[in-house]
């Protein structure tokens, strides 16, 4: 065996190094030195993230007989995830160091890094076995993370619901895979693609495809595979929720694109375009309809993230490199916007334990900075110019429309109408904070350094990503030169 092929996996190895260092530090360092665990983890991860942007990472390579592939696009999407994870880590410092969590925060970091590793594999896999390993590594430890607030009943309930649904969806996914294997005799993406391009579509393939979509759709919480989302987001500790809603989703969305294009590309217009079409409409609309009614901020963001996932899928259904670029950009912007929102929620929750939307009434008077951060996050999520969210929505619509069929125009129109609905509920939060005259239940307080740092990064992202156009242009160039759509 040629061991040099491990060198293709620079980011995975880097992540493992970070994981091992954190693990060793947590396990073997004396009690006195343990206080700095959070800081060390953030620092290590920041270094690792920075290293990811090194141009030397941008190379095409594969390993393990083509099961694993890396390319500039893969590196970039992993970098985007890394930035998000870094913000999550920074924001979670205070929670992790609270009296209840301090003794087990090591596990939190380790589990988080392991799931991230799984996501890396999902993105880079070009063989379904490796993909399933990644998927499971990214799913199962999350259940433990969801249950992290051991002494809260909701946390248990959420974990149980999560694990049951996750296992069920894995089963469905594997079932779909076995159909695919039966049809084509291989689990390599490229080989399945070839086999499918000769044999015409069959009912079995359609069923297989539906099962595969359901399996990945669970991670993305697409409707109708989304029902776990709200309960889990609400029950899980806020840091875990933000991780779930942003990182896990971003990774799954990209992996989804790779699978649909590289494996089932030949049956795009016959089969999965229409499946996805229906799913996107359902996801955006149902996500919005439920979001309107929510009074709990975490639950509210859960439904908002469902409908956001629908928008992300527009980049997949576009089925061209512009769609891919805009999807990556959307994920990047979504990372910043959603993490800003969760940053505010967790800061307030850590201090007061309040998560109801009514508790936010009049927040501007007591905590103006947090309110402004939250407002920017809501504006960005709703897509109000000049914030980044506007541009990401704009580009993803552009990408989808480039596909050219009238059906897609209709889809974009429906998505546009839904943005109006979403504007309503995002602005509800802003209204509660700024306009409501009620006495605010949240007393003025100063959030911790780590929380402020995380929020500053997120807000900077929201404000500047839209204006600094080179980001999107870079992604566009990268996608244009990538080989993901090359075989078409």
């Amino acid at each position, binding site marked *: 065996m040629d061991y040099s092929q491990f060198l293709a996996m620079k980011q995975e190895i880097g992540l493992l190094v970070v994981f091992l260092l954190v693990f060793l530090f947590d396990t073997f360092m004396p009690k006195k030195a343990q206080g700095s665990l959070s800081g060390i983890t953030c620092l290590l991860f920041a270094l690792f993230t920075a290293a990811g942007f090194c141009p030397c990472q941008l190379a095409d390579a594969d390993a393990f007989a083509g099961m694993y592939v890396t390319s500039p696009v893969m590196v970039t999407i992993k970098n985007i995830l890394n930035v998000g994870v870094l913000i999550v880590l920074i924001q979670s410092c205070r929670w992790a160091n609270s009296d209840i969590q301090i003794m087990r925060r090591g596990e939190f970091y380790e589990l988080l890094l392991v799931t991230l590793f799984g996501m890396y594999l999902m993105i880079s896999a070009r063989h379904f076995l490796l993909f399933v390993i990644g998927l499971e590594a990214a799913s199962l430890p999350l259940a433990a993370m969801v249950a992290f607030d051991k002494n809260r009943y909701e946390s248990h309930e959420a974990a149980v619901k999560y694990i049951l*649904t996750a296992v069920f969806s894995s089963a469905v996914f594997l079932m779909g895979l076995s159909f695919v294997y039966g049809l084509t005799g291989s689990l390599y993406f490229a080989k399945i693609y070839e086999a499918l391009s000769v044999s015409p579509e069959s009912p079995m393939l359609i069923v297989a495809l539906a099962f595969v979509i359901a399996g990945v759709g669970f991670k993305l919480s697409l409707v109708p*595979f989304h029902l776990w989302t709200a*309960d889990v987001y609400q029950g899980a500790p806020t840091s875990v929720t933000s991780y779930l809603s942003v990182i896990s989703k971003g990774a799954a969305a990209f992996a989804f694109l790779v699978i649909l294009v590289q494996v089932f590309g030949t049956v795009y217009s016959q089969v999965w375009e229409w*499946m996805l079409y229906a799913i996107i409409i359902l996801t955006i609309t149902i996500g919005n309809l439920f979001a309107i009614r929510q009074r709990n901020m975490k639950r509210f963001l859960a439904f908002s993230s469902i409908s956001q996932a629908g928008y992300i899928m527009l980049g997949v259904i576009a089925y061209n490199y512009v769609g891919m670029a805009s999807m990556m950009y959307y994920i990047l912007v979504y990372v910043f916007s959603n993490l800003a929102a969760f940053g505010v929620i967790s800061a307030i929750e850590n201090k007061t334990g309040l998560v109801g939307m009514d508790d936010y009434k009049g927040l501007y008077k007591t905590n103006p900075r947090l309110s402004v951060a939250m407002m920017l996050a809501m504006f960005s999520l709703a897509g109000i110019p000049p914030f980044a969210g506007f541009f990401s929505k704009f580009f993803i619509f552009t990408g989808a429309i480039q596909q050219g069929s009238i059906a897609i125009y209709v889809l974009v129109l429906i998505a546009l109408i839904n943005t109006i609905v979403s504007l309503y509920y995002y602005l509800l939060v802003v209204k509660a904070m700024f306009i409501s005259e009620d006495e605010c239940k949240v007393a003025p307080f100063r959030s911790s350094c780590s929380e402020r740092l995380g929020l500053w990064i997120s807000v900077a992202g929201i404000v500047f990503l839209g204006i600094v156009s080179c980001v999107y242009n870079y992604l566009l160039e990268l996608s244009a030169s990538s080989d993901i759509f090359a075989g078409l």
Partner: protein
Amino acid sequence: MDQITSILILALPLCMFLLLGIFGNKMSHKMAGILGTLGMGVTLILAYSTAFTYFFSGNELFVDAAGNRLQHLVFDQTWLAFTQHLVIKLGFLLDPISAMMLVVITTISFMVHLYSLGYMHGETGFQRYYAFLSLFSFSMLGLVVATNIFQMYIFWELVGASSYLLIGFYYTKPSAVSASKKAFIVTRFADLGFLIGILILSFYTETFDFMTMTNAPENVLASTGGAVFMGGSVLTWALVLIFMGGMGKSAMMPLHIWLPDAMEGPTPVSALIHAATMVVAGVFLVARMFPVYLMEVTALEIVTVVGALTALYAAIVACTQVDIKRVLAFSTISQIAFMMVALGVARPDIHEGVGYMASMFHLFTHAMFKALLFLGAGALIHAVHSNDYTAMGGLRKYMPVTHITFLIGCLAIAGIWPFAGFFSKDEILVAAFENNALWGVWMTAVAGLTSFYMFRLYYRIFWWNEPDYEHHGHVPHDAPWTMTLPLIILAAVSVVAGFIPFGELVTWSREAYEIHINWTVAGTSIAVAVAAIALATVMYRKENELPDKLASRFKGLWTAAHHRFYFDELYMFITHKIIFNLISRPIAWFDRHIIDGTMDMFATVTNKVSYAIRGLQSGNVQTYVWVYLLGTLLIAAVAVICLV
């Protein structure tokens, strides 16, 4: 010119704005003022060095072997690329007019920063004031170095916004608030034309770039393919619409109504924005697009006519105003109209386009002496706490520095040799005569009026009859050094600026051109100016009955001019009586009942559906899995049925 310097020229004022805007409240007044002034000072040095390098270094980037100046793109970054052609870039274009504007803007801005330290001392919102000044400087600098018309439009709107903020600086004063709104709405209305013009032009040429358009204007003409719209060629329409934007910003008739009211802002702001820099943006715009305008002489003729009418109108109105800032405002309108006329009459076959050079020259000198006059007016207002000259009189004894500098400003604007205004105005008159004798005579007459109203103002302020200052509790005196120093500097510049060999620096073809003073034209204009000054001396040097007598003799004309020929009333009538009643009310009804009704229906339906399906989220994990499985199977089943 390296990129760092050029970026810094723009970045420094922007950073100052952010710094003062965000952290201003935590600073003392003094700190904020000094920071802002220092920032502007550094920008000034950078801009001067940039302009100096551009004009005098002889670097082959800026001057070719034949001695012609070149346009140099310091940088030009793609900002938004919608399609292959629809690309918006942000960059920094260095050429004679932008280099000159850098000098003008930073000089005046720095003077105003310095002056405001004294003038705005102790005002609430001092930090905010400095933040806005920085924002304005940033926007104006970005406007003049724009590499393409879209970038210019962006900064064009930014200067409009900062002007709005500064006019309404005293936001507790209703008149200031309505003045700022008026300025914003009128210029926005004009910008609508500008935007449509940009869209038409770029639709045909498939570019926004100034360099692409102006270096091969025949391509611009060719690209329209002779398309005609309502009797005019499409290019004429585009250029006239673009000029409409310029009319709004440069307060050309009939879109001038906002500028006199804009005097509600602090006086240094009037000096910076509403005399020296922003209001000449329209002139700059036409100058920037000049080669394209040359392709359509009709458009240039419209520019000339609008300019000439405005010049005369504003000069007449200025003779009857009482508020010294209003007089200066109308004088500004009239002088900008001079520049417009100069551009309008410029043709390449007349003295190598002398009008273009004259226009830019006048822009430069006017910026200096008009800023001087405004800052002088600020000092006067500061001293007597009134804008009306009726509260002044005999001030020469109390405020010698202000008096001398103001007199220099008046002489400069009147066009007396050797002050700056003489040289630039002379070139404008030459260009006008060469084009058409009518314009020459017309503009000479306006120049005479200019001398008259300026000296009327001068005598009323510094001579006439002295009111009882003691009675008001304090005797006026000269301002502190932060205010008088800018006056002295600007006065010195106003004396010598005329000797700058402008023809060698700024011409439309960027070839060096030697200025010849045409003494026939110059002699006439000086004679007219001196006569006008003499008349003003007779009428206003000492208190007498003559002005009142004349006013009652020509009562109709005087009243009309005093009321600015009822332009505001006309606008009020059109907007309130016609547009509001005939258009706005029906639309409002439609909006309230039909559009809102539809939206309310959507909202109700959405809410109902949302309520109806809430049961789906039961909290029961068995149901979740059921829905999951059924969903998957349903999708598969539907797909199978539909597709196989």
